[in-house]
C-alpha cells in the first residue's frame, strides 16, 4: 500500500524514473523507503521534537512561529538530503549487483531525476512536518498556537 502510495505521489511530480532501467529500484525500494522515512522519521518525529521535547519536556524559548519556520526549513533540507543519499546508494548497489553502468546517454537524465527527487522530497518533508504539527501541537502547553491558533 505504501509502495503504491509513495510511487504515485513521487511520480506525479517527477514522472517515471529515468533511465527506465532504474524503475524497479525506485518504485520498489527508494520511493517507499524514503517516503516512509520522510513521513514518520522526519515529519512525525520532527513535530514531536519541536512540540513535545522543546516545548513541553524542556521549556525552551523556541516556541514562536519564526522558530517553527526555521525547523520547517531544517527538516525540508534533511528530507532532501535523505532522498539524495538514499537514492544514490540504492542505485549504485543495484548497478554493482548487476554489473552494469548507466549508459552514457542517460547520465544527465539520471542526475536530473535524482536532483528532482531530492527537491520533491524536501517539499514532502516540509508538508509532512506541517501536517504532523497540527496533529501534535495540542500536546504542547507552550507552542499550542504555533504556527496558528486554528483549530484550537
Amino acid at each position: 500500500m505504501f509502495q503504491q502510495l509513495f510511487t504515485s505521489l513521487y511520480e506525479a511530480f517527477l514522472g517515471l524514473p529515468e533511465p527506465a532501467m532504474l524503475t524497479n529500484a525506485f518504485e520498489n525500494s527508494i520511493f517507499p523507503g524514503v517516503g516512509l522515512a520522510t513521513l514518520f522519521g522526519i515529519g512525525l518525529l520532527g513535530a514531536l521534537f519541536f512540540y513535545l521535547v522543546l516545548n513541553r519536556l524542556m521549556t525552551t524559548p523556541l516556541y514562536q512561529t519564526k522558530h517553527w519556520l526555521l525547523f520547517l526549513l531544517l527538516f525540508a533540507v534533511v528530507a532532501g538530503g535523505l532522498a539524495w543519499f538514499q537514492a544514490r546508494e540504492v542505485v549504485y548497489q543495484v548497478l554493482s549487483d548487476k554489473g552494469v553502468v548507466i549508459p552514457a546517454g542517460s547520465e544527465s537524465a539520471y542526475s536530473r531525476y535524482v536532483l528532482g527527487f531530492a527537491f520533491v522530497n524536501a517539499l514532502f518533508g516540509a508538508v509532512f512536518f506541517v501536517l504532523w504539527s497540527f496533529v501534535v501541537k495540542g500536546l504542547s502547553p507552550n507552542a499550542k498556537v504555533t504556527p496558528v491558533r486554528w483549530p484550537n
Partner: protein
Amino acid sequence: MLFTLASRNTLSCLAIGALFSACSGPKGEGSVAGSPTKESAANVAAAKVSQINVFVDMSGGMRGFMHANDPGRNETGSEFQRTVMDLLSDVNRLAPKLTAPPAYYFFKEKEPTNPQVLVPSTYAGMTGAVSGGLKNAARGSELPQMLSEALTLQAKKPGTVSILISDFIFAPQNVKDTWRIKTFIKDALNAVEPAKLAVSVFANTSEFRGNFYPGNRTGKQPLNGEQLPYYIWVLGDPALVGQVDGGLLRRLAAQPQAHYNVAFAPPYAVPDFLTDPVGNWTVAEGTGATAPVVTFTKKPTLGKPAEIVVALDLNQLPASIVGQVSANTLRLAEAGTGATLTQVFPLAQMPDARQQPALKKYTHFARLRFVQAPAGAPTLHLELARTEPAWVAAYSTASDSGIKKQGPKTYYLKEVMAGVADYFADEPSAQRVFSLPVRVTARD
C-alpha cells in the same frame, strides 16, 4: 539525531522498514533484470541422471575401428579408439555421482544357437576390447534391435541415459527392404512415448583397418586406414540428454550432430540497461521457475512502439545449432500480443556491449517490437525451430559397395535419421530446439 538519519540512510530504511517492511532493498524485488544464468541451470538441475548404460556394437564390421596398436611403430590408436576411450573413462569417473554404477554392454545380433543380444561387460572389459581389438566379434548387429534393447533396459530404471556406439550400418536382411528402413527405426523407438524420449546423434569418422562389410550385402572389402563414419547415439529423458550432451559429451561438441527433442535450456534475459531503450518498460528478472516479466509503463502504440531485446547465451548449445540462429530460424510465439521479431544479431553487433560488460556473457540478441499493449499478462515464447542437419545427407549413401572411392559414408543414414524424425513428428516440443518464455504486461 535526524542528521544521523540523513547521512546513514540505511538506518532509516532499517528503522522504518522493520515496521512496514516496505524497504525491499536493492536485493529484493527492487533489483532489475540480470544474472540470468541461474534460471536454466535450475530448470535442468531438477532432473538428474541416475544411471548410464553404454552399448558398443561388437559386430565384425566394428573390428576395423578397434585395431591393436603397436607402440613400436608409433601407432597412437584410431580416432574411434581415442574418442571412445575418453568417453568410457569419463563415464567411469561419473560412477560415484550416479545412483547405480554405469553398465557396459556389447551388442551383437541374435544367432540361431545363441539368442542373447546384449553381452554384459565391465569397464575393464570394454576398454580392453576397444583398445586391443574385439575378440569373437559377432557376425552382425541389427540397428532397430539395438535401439529397442537399449530402450527396454533404460525403461527399467527411470533416469537412465543410454549411449550407443556403433557404425550404425543398418542392412535389412532383405536388400529389397531398404525403403522400409525408416519404418523399422520408428517402430523400434515406438516402445517409448515420444514426449519422454530424446535422441542425440554425434557423427565422426575414424581410420578403419580391416574388413568392411557393406550394408547392401555385397562382398567384404579390406580397408587400410581409410576414414569411415561411426556414431554415438544418446537416448534418454529430454532434460537428461541435454545434460549429458553439454556435460559428459562436451568433447564431441565440434562434431556433426543431430538432436531430437533434447531439452536445451540456454540462459537468457531481457536486459533493461540498453543505451537507447525504445518505449517505456521495466523488467523483473526471471527465476528458475518463472519467466522474466516485462511491464510497459507506457502502453506501446503504432506511433510510439516499444522494443525489448532478449539476450541469449547459446554457449552451451552445439555449434551447428548456434550457426543456424538467425531472424529466419528464430520465431516468436506472440500469444496474441501482436509482437514481432524484428532483428536477430550476434554479440559483435551489439554496440552496448562495449559499455556494459554484463552483456558480454550473451552470444545473440533478438529484438521484439510491440505496437499495442498486451491484454492481461500473456507469455510470449522465443523459439528456435529444429531443422534437419545438412551433414546427414552428405554422410548417407544408397550403395556402399565401393566405399573406398566414396569416402566416409553410411548406408542409408538419411533413412535412419528420417525414421527418428518421423517418430518425433507429432511431438510439438521436438519441433523446436528451445522455447524461452517472456511474460509481458502493461500498466493501466
